[in-house]
């Protein structure tokens, strides 16, 4: 028994070492990567300052298309943010033990994409200072106001949901970081101490932490669902063709889950590769996550069919013009590429077990994520180009839209910001919940021990009944043997 405990302790020590190792060194590659991201983010900031100075006229947006790339990206980022919290919370609630190594990266993805997703509508404002008008003169009957409230609520919830499982890990980091030498180490020591909130791992502390984690796990699911439902309302509460749909709420939620889960797989793959976590994030994790994404893609495909098939059957005037444009007009190439390339093709790939291996699954998920982004663009822009009143007496270029360099720069600057925050976070904090993975090891050993005891007991019973004794190690290899 002591021997068993030693093995567990050794495994836990190994987990702690594997998780904390990447936080100790900042390699040249990491510094170069951060430098590149800073450059892209800096260029994005320059483009935004230019937009602030000269006004929204420097973008390609005009009177008709007033929501362009920025709002499409906002919807996309909010969608990606569903990944973490929902995947993590649902797997926690259903007590899926394999979730343990991937929850932190999923929760981080939620936090960061929400942070930047929330910024996008402010960037879309010509006068960002007027965002305070929402606080002073906000009208509760406006779906935009619901959006602000629900995103803020979700952001706070997701931040806390990311933070809670980090508390024991922060204490571990605090205790492991002895004798800080550099200023940066001193800062880290202070940060870990602050975030560990005097964590000593006492029974009372564990009890309270588990209680609030359970509460958060339950409450974050409806909050997450409400966020993307409300995001869909800012479109669906209008009478515009393409948006005036009762299925938009679930359609957006399904789309968010489908793209968000794909985002989680990409995060898993990145941390597995660059942090050497192959031992913890295994092929099995990819297979299981692949199954989840497959299920979500099927749900999304079903809602997608409803979203287009029903209005296409009716072809009401306004809706008809839009659908013609999507089916065989200006947007048809993009539309059909999205349907076949980013929905049908992933379904086929992920249905095959080989397609759920790490490499093909990562490629599929890249396709899904890019497709989800373009899909948001296809939801936002073509509808704006099909107003009920004809576009007339305006310059020719007002009737078309394609983002210009300012919009691309700002958007890619934000994307670089997301990667930057993730990279810095991953260099400061362990990217797996150390205590959760360690708990998983103990549970695994307990299960094995319980299984051995069960087999021994059954073998003894068989022996006492006059049967043949099967040694436990052989019995484990023959689960099909029926014991009376």
């Amino acid at each position, binding site marked *: 028994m002591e021997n068993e405990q030693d093995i567990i302790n050794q495994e836990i020590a190994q987990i702690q070492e594997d998780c904390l190792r990447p936080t100790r060194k900042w390699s040249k590659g990491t510094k170069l990567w951060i430098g590149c991201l800073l450059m892209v983010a800096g260029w994005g900031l320059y483009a935004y300052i230019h937009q602030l100075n000269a006004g929204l006229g420097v973008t390609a947006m005009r009177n008709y298309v007033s929501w362009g790339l920025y709002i499409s990206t906002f919807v996309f980022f909010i969608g990606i943010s569903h990944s973490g919290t929902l995947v993590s919370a649902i797997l926690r609630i259903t007590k899926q033990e394999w979730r343990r190594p991937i929850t932190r990266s999923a929760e981080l993805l939620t936090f960061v994409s929400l942070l930047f997703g929330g910024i996008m509508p402010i960037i879309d404002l010509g006068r960002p200072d007027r965002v305070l008008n929402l606080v002073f003169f906000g*009208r*509760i*009957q*406006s779906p935009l106001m*619901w959006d602000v*409230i*629900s995103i803020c*609520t979700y952001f*706070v*919830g997701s931040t*806390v949901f990311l933070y809670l499982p980090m*508390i024991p890990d922060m204490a571990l980091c605090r205790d492991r970081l002895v004798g800080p030498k550099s200023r940066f180490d001193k800062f880290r020591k202070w940060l870990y101490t602050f975030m560990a*909130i*005097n*964590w*000593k791992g*006492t029974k*009372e*502390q564990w009890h*309270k*932490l588990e*209680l*609030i984690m359970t*509460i*958060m796990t339950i*409450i974050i699911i409806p*909050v997450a669902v*409400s966020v993307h439902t409300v995001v869909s309302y800012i479109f669906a509460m209008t009478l515009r063709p393409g948006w005036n749909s009762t299925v938009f709420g679930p359609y957006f939620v399904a789309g968010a889950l489908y793209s968000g889960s794909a985002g989680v797989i990409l995060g898993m793959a990145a941390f597995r590769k660059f942090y050497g976590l192959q031992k913890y994030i295994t092929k099995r994790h990819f297979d299981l996550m692949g199954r989840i994404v497959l299920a979500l893609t099927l749900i999304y495909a079903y809602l997608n069919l409803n979203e287009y098939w029903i209005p296409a059957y009716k072809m009401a005037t306004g809706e008809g013009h839009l659908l013609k444009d999507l089916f065989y007009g200006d947007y048809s190439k993009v539309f059909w590429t999205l349907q076949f390339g980013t929905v049908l093709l992933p379904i086929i790939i992920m249905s095959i077990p080989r397609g759920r291996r790490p490499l093909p699954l990562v490629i599929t998920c890249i396709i899904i994520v890019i497709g989800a982004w373009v899909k948001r663009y296809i939801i936002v822009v073509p509808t704006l180009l099909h107003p009920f009143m004809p576009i007339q*007496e*305006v*310059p*020719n270029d007002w009737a078309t839209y394609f983002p210009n360099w300012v919009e691309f720069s700002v958007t890619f600057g934000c994307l670089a910001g997301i990667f930057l925050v993730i990279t810095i976070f991953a260099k400061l904090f362990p990217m797996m919940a150390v205590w959760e993975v360690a708990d998983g090891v103990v549970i695994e050993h307990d299960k094995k021990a319980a299984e051995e005891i069960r087999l021994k007991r059954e073998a003894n019973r068989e022996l006492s009944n006059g049967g043949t004794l099967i040694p436990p190690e052989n019995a484990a290899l023959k689960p099909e043997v029926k014991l009376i």
Partner: protein
Amino acid sequence: MKTVKINKRIIMANIILLAILNLFCLNVIAQDKSASSIQLSYYKKADKTRTIVAKVKGKNEDKKFVPVANVKVNFYFQNKKDEQLIKGIATDMSGNAELVLPKIVPLDDENYFTIIAKIENDSKYEDADEQVHYTDASFNIKIDPKDTSRLATVEVTSIDNKGKEVPVKGVEVTFYVQRLFGIMPASEDPKVTTDKSGEAEFNLPKDIAGDTLGNLTIVARIEDNAQFGNIETKVSAPWAIALIPEKNPFPRALWEPKAPPILVITISTLFGGVWFTYFFMFWKLSRIKKDGMKSKVKA
């Protein structure tokens, strides 16, 4: 001799090559500027201000003429044989450049004035010009507010070459009613034509809604007339159905000062519940911190 012949051939070939290059360059330079067109309209508003609107269109990549912004249009008076510059105005986003005419304009012997609009030396568009030739008219509307038949009479007169005011026969006048965002034809057949006394009459229908006092504004227009351009006159008449506003015309509108109570209750309950849980959680976190401090003391 042979060398001379070869040299001549080389010189000729060079000349041809240069000529081709020259033609090509000229062609490129010529292609730099797009074709443009100007369309002029003359308006005399009810307040007697007179404007000339030049609509400028340029040829785009699809070879279609579309309105173009920021093109300078120079407006000139034709004063006998001379052209007198009035002002240069850049077109707006709709491709329009609007000039308010001065009160006194140079007239010819038949009391006509000529305005010329030109695009000159523009960097993007080729030169273009257009001119209009109109005479001034007096256009008035009369009503008797007590008239139960709601008869509106318009009178069109102009000054002839002897300086005498004469009625104008055969001018088509269209009647409209002013609405909040524009004008509406006053009936299904709102057009009347002036008789030899220069007058035309129009009976306003009974069932037109007006303001809260039953007033409406009748707008009479002479439109695209070859002699007078566009002229407008207005008069207010108490001939409409008074519009009594409903107490609450938009009970569920976004611009209502108060949100429906059920909406406020629903949103407050849902999000209030979530935020209450958050605060409970923060309180529990503070307890975790306190527990840690206690165990420190014990240790």
